[in-house]
């Protein structure tokens, strides 16, 4: 059994000048790169498969398998240039792990990019960072410059004959650009709208060439997997969800923050580490992995937070963005706020999501302002039903999660918004709404 917290990705964060090449190399950095570049690319793909690493960007796709989909060889798509694109668009509400990673330890991501690019035979890598993440962009660019100066990037890296250019690309504010195909369109200088799949990025991604898109935390894990080996990685977490993972605990807890633990930690343990609920006010609802993952309640304190555990309990692991809300928060209000977010961020490409999120916001705002009708709850569920599985990308599906899960666990609270005599105490947001009478 491993310890309750296992800092790997976060192990350097408290070091002085943790973001510099000097600190990184003093603490073992860039050793894995040397081993990797001395091996065959296919050995690295095999290592990644053996480790069981799964994508940390939300969907949990096996990373080694993704790399192996890149066509190699001199013919067809295999003859085209290959690209590595890092998804650093971190925008899923609640998610706040990649930004501290890039600020505190940018070289771990860069070393991961070098190893991954070598494995998939890419000579160009773009790190697409959301534009609002200025300090991470700054740190990454400084680290990339250090890596070039040291001969870890550029042509003929360490005399191996391997060439790699890395560009740190600033986005411009659009949650949808975190969706990997929208991200590619955005990186090509277009509106960030999802592409029809297939073809998948592995065969026709950036500039219609074979492309791997991976999350920051996924790729920052790679140097450790090389340094420790697949067995070492698998000493943490479970068979199907191995490795350490950064859990971002936010909201009504005494000590919010970043906690890196083996996959499968529970909210009960996280709450203990975080000093319990703030001011002792009881837990009401929480998200296991961002607003797009169906909410949980106090019933779910012991659900193992790994891919299987979260799914088994009716939600998803998502980005392990654990947002904790206490009893003072109105569920319909929270759901309304999240829905306003999805409506704002809907790219407008497909009708179910574009129209659906518009109507969902109309209904929820009406309800929260005390003007709901008897049929509103059913109408909400009906609209969600028409979005889920019918929209072009997963943003639409995600938009339904807070609503359907909120109604599943707190239906009475929605109904009470319509009834004259609320059965539950009016949470503070609603008192506020009635006072000002204005939509947020």
């Amino acid at each position, binding site marked *: 059994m491993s310890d309750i917290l296992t800092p790997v990705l976060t192990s350097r964060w*408290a070091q002085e000048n*943790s973001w510099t090449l000097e600190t990184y190399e003093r603490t073992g950095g860039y050793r894995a790169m040397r081993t990797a570049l001395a091996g065959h690319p296919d050995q690295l793909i095999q290592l990644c498969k053996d480790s069981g690493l799964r994508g940390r960007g939300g969907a949990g796709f096996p990373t080694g398998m993704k790399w192996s989909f890149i066509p190699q060889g001199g013919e067809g798509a295999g003859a085209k240039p290959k690209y590595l694109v890092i998804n650093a668009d971190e925008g899923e509400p609640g998610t706040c792990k990649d930004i501290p990673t890039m600020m505190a330890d940018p070289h771990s991501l860069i070393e991961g990019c070098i190893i991954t690019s070598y494995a998939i035979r890419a000579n160009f890598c773009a790190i697409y960072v959301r534009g609002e993440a200025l*300090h991470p962009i700054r740190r990454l660019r400084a680290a990339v410059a250090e890596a070039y100066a040291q001969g870890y990037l550029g042509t003929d890296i360490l005399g191996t004959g391997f060439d790699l250019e890395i560009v740190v*690309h600033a986005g411009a504010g659009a949650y949808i650009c975190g969706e990997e195909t929208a991200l590619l369109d955005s990186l090509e200088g277009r509106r960030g709208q999802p592409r029809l799949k297939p073809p998948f990025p592995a065969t026709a991604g950036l500039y219609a060439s074979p492309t791997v898109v991976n999350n920051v935390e996924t790729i920052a894990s790679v140097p450790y997997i090389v340094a420790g080996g697949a067995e070492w990685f698998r000493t943490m977490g479970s068979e199907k969800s191995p490795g350490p993972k*950064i859990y971002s605990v936010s909201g*009504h807890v005494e000590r919010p*923050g970043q906690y890196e633990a083996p996959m499968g930690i529970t909210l009960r343990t996280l709450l203990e580490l975080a000093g319990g609920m703030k001011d002792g006010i009881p837990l009401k609802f929480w998200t296991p992995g961002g607003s797009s993952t169906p909410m949980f309640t106090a019933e779910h304190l012991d659900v193992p937070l790994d891919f299987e555990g979260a799914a088994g309990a009716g939600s998803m692991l998502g980005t392990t963005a654990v947002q904790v*809300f206490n009893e003072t928060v109105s569920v319909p209000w929270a759901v309304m706020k999240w829905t306003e977010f999805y409506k704002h961020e809907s790219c407008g490409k497909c009708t179910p999501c574009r129209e659906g999120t518009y109507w969902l916001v109309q209904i929820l705002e009406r309800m929260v302002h005390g003007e709901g009708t008897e049929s509103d709850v059913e109408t909400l569920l009906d609209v969600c039903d028409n979005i889920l599985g019918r929209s072009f990308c997963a943003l639409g599906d995600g938009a339904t999660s807070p609503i359907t899960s909120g109604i599943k666990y707190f239906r009475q609270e929605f109904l009470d918004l319509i009834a004259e005599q609320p059965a539950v105490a009016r949470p503070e947001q609603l008192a506020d709404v009635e006072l000002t009478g204005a939509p947020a």
Partner: protein
Amino acid sequence: MSERAMSGFDELTHVRAKEVIARYPVARSALLPLLHLVQSVEGCVSQDGIRFCAELLDLSTAEVSAVATFYTMYKRTPCGEHLVSVCTNTLCAALGGDDIYRRLSERLGVGHEETAGEPGTTGSLTLEHAECLAACDLAPVIQVNYEYFDNQTVESAERLVEALQRGEKPHPTRGAPLTDLRTVELELAGFTEDPTVAAAAVAGNSAAPETLRGTMIAAERGWAAPAFPDEIPALPEKS
């Protein structure tokens, strides 16, 4: 290339634009950074800026416009010296973000994406409510020119805004010493004016107590990841 269209932008901006384009295997990928560059010169993305990008990348102005209007960071009217973004996504809102936004909006007498003061002059501020800024463990969060001011209250936010209006530059909780929105847009495009300032910016604080919470608890309690093998293990055979 028509002289008239390009006239709004100086020689240095042209040189920089070429440099941005050279970073990418395909020129059009430079469009987002070019729009940041344009915004650093004009304080917004104007019709001139759109024409500038279109001509450089051999696109129509309609194509560039369609892109510029898609992204929230490109502003269509000139911004203040500073951009104040208040996160009002659910988690921040529940912890006070909505109250902060409302109070600032009242105080400044402006709404979303509106500017208090003459755009560009010292102390002028553009206000906006923002979606989740990926700093939820430090909620409620404000950014000024995309630098983080964490763990805000209505009072601290008011003090921050007052200081900015007086022309002061309070230090962010995480990030570099404050400059102004245009300088930051230039940085997003990939350029800095002064190497000494740039080095100080990189060194700006990043580790809030919240960021280090897990690592600190692990250190106190003697918890760690399983030790790495002494030697890096041999890579597996390829399958």
